[in-house]
């Protein structure tokens, strides 16, 4: 009946378009326009004081010769190591939490607390814990195992492992909740059938749990890679000026420094595009490869 009334449909369409207009406008103003402008910028030299100067591909050529840029790329890739470690720990936690235990919701809250805590506050507290001489961690290592702990944030070799450690503490709770939801959706009949066939715990984990959770593994890997490539706040606090020998700087940190410390806007834009391209390519490869290992119902 409704479509037979042209007047009504016309009015409805008017409403529909005014309802979808804001996000579309937002996309044009805060998404598309900046992207186009950023491409334009990346071919210029601009310090925001004098007018932009066209320099062609020079920014990109300079990036390829820039040792600090390579270092920040290397550091970012190094931090990706935290993803598989975090997945193993989170899955383990989720399996433990999937039992009907007393006080399990309190446990879940405790593990989830770091996820919601502000990253800046968390980074400050870790800076204190990782203090070489008076920090909690080194004291703990000394008293319990007689190990003299390293200067976690003060030595180039230890900055990245420290960042991974903090990332694990802050991230396992979130991944654990995802796995928990996944575990609860696996039908118990699979396990019962496997038990009848005489499968042990490890075999059930290997042949049922881990394969059936592949959509979640996939989600965690994709989001983890994107998140790692965007990491900035913890770097800003924990690796001041990029850390010793620039060992803690990530790509975003490098871009930030160029843009807002040196006001080298064109150069920073070029760096941002290289980062965008890396994220895009890795995500694309992940989706292409996903057919081979992600289980589809």
């Amino acid at each position, binding site marked *: 009946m409704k479509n037979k009334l042209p007047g009504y449909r016309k009015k*409805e*369409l008017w*409403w*529909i378009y005014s309802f*979808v207009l*804001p*996000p*579309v406008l*937002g*996309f044009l103003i*805060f*998404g598309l*326009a*900046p*992207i186009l*402008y*950023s491409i334009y*910028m990346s071919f210029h030299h601009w310090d925001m004081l004098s007018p932009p100067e066209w320099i062609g591909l020079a920014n990109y050529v300079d990036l390829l010769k820039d040792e600090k840029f390579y270092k920040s790329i290397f550091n970012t890739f190094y931090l990706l190591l935290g993803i598989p470690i975090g997945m193993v720990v989170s899955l383990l936690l989720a399996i*433990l*939490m999937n*039992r009907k*235990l007393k006080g399990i919701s309190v446990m879940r809250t405790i*593990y*989830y*607390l770091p996820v*919601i805590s*502000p990253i*800046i*506050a968390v980074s*400050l*507290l870790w*800076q*204190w*814990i990782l203090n070489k001489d*008076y920090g*909690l961690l080194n*004291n703990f290592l000394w*008293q319990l195992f007689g190990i003299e702990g390293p200067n976690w944030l003060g030595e180039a070799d230890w900055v990245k492992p420290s960042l991974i450690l903090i990332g694990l*503490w802050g991230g396992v709770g979130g991944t654990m*909740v*995802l796995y928990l*939801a*996944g575990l*609860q959706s696996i039908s118990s009949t699979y396990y019962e059938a496997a038990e009848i066939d005489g499968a042990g715990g490890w075999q059930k984990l290997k042949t049922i749990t881990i394969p*059936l959770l592949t*959509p979640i593994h996939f989600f965690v890997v994709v989001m983890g890679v994107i998140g790692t*490539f*965007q990491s*900035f*706040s913890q770097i*800003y606090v924990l690796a001041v000026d990029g850390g010793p020998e620039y060992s803690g700087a990530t*790509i*975003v940190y490098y871009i*930030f420094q160029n843009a*807002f410390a040196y006001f080298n806007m064109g150069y920073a834009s070029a760096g*941002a*595009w290289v*980062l*965008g391209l890396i994220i*895009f390519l890795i995500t694309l490869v992940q989706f292409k490869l996903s057919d081979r290992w992600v289980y589809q119902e």
Partner: protein
Amino acid sequence: MQYKKTADAWAMFLLLLGSVFMIAPFIWTLSTSLKHQQHIFDLPPKWIPSPATFGNFQAVWEESPLLFGFLNSMTIVVVVLTVGLFVSAMSSYAFGKFEFPYKGVLFMGLLGTMMIPYSVVMIPQYIGFSALQWVDTLLPLIVPGLFGNIVVIFFLKQYLAGALPNDLIEAAKIDGSGFFRIFWTIALPIMKPALAAQAALGFMGIWNDFLGPLIYLHTPEKQTIQVLIASMQSMYISGSNYPMIMAAAVIAMLPVILVFFFCQRYFVESLAISGIKG
């Protein structure tokens, strides 16, 4: 079953052990924030401060414009969430429940924006906002949020697909209700739980945001709580004044932890609604 009992006991033991590592940093922070400066180097470290003092909280609060930080963060949160969520609800209703020309293209275009890393748009946005003379105001942090958020739109659209039957809309139409009236009196109330879930998540996201506020806000009185807290690092760490820094960290964490405790159910719901179940 004896086997099950032992397994449960082991699971509990391992979880407890892990939870010590998860919670210890928080307790240590709180403990340090209550200590006098000269006691923080005591070895072995003492968990219970004696004597305890609230002086650090008072000093931090007085020396730094934390109240402004709170108000600034709160302003951004409240404005962006009320307007942004409402706008998102509107477009999710249109996208989710109606057919119209170019719908597919528009929606895919919006989803495409999720792929753009913030670092790519960050610099041109900064240049644009500084041309408008909006740097050192809250506007660059508020205005983009007023246009709705595609992640929220997507989430609400999924929710509406299950929660709002098309027949209900048709029936209301036949009864003579107009487009906006149906949205306002039927769709919006149905979306309430989903909106609450997104509000809880949105609060966390905006309250904890750092890079944007760091770029735009320069005067201490205009900064958000996170930027203020971060600037304390340079103020106090050189003097190893950890009690002050930890007091500041506690102040920054408190609202988030409180919101989390009171809204926990919405966090769980948001996970359930988004259907990340494998």
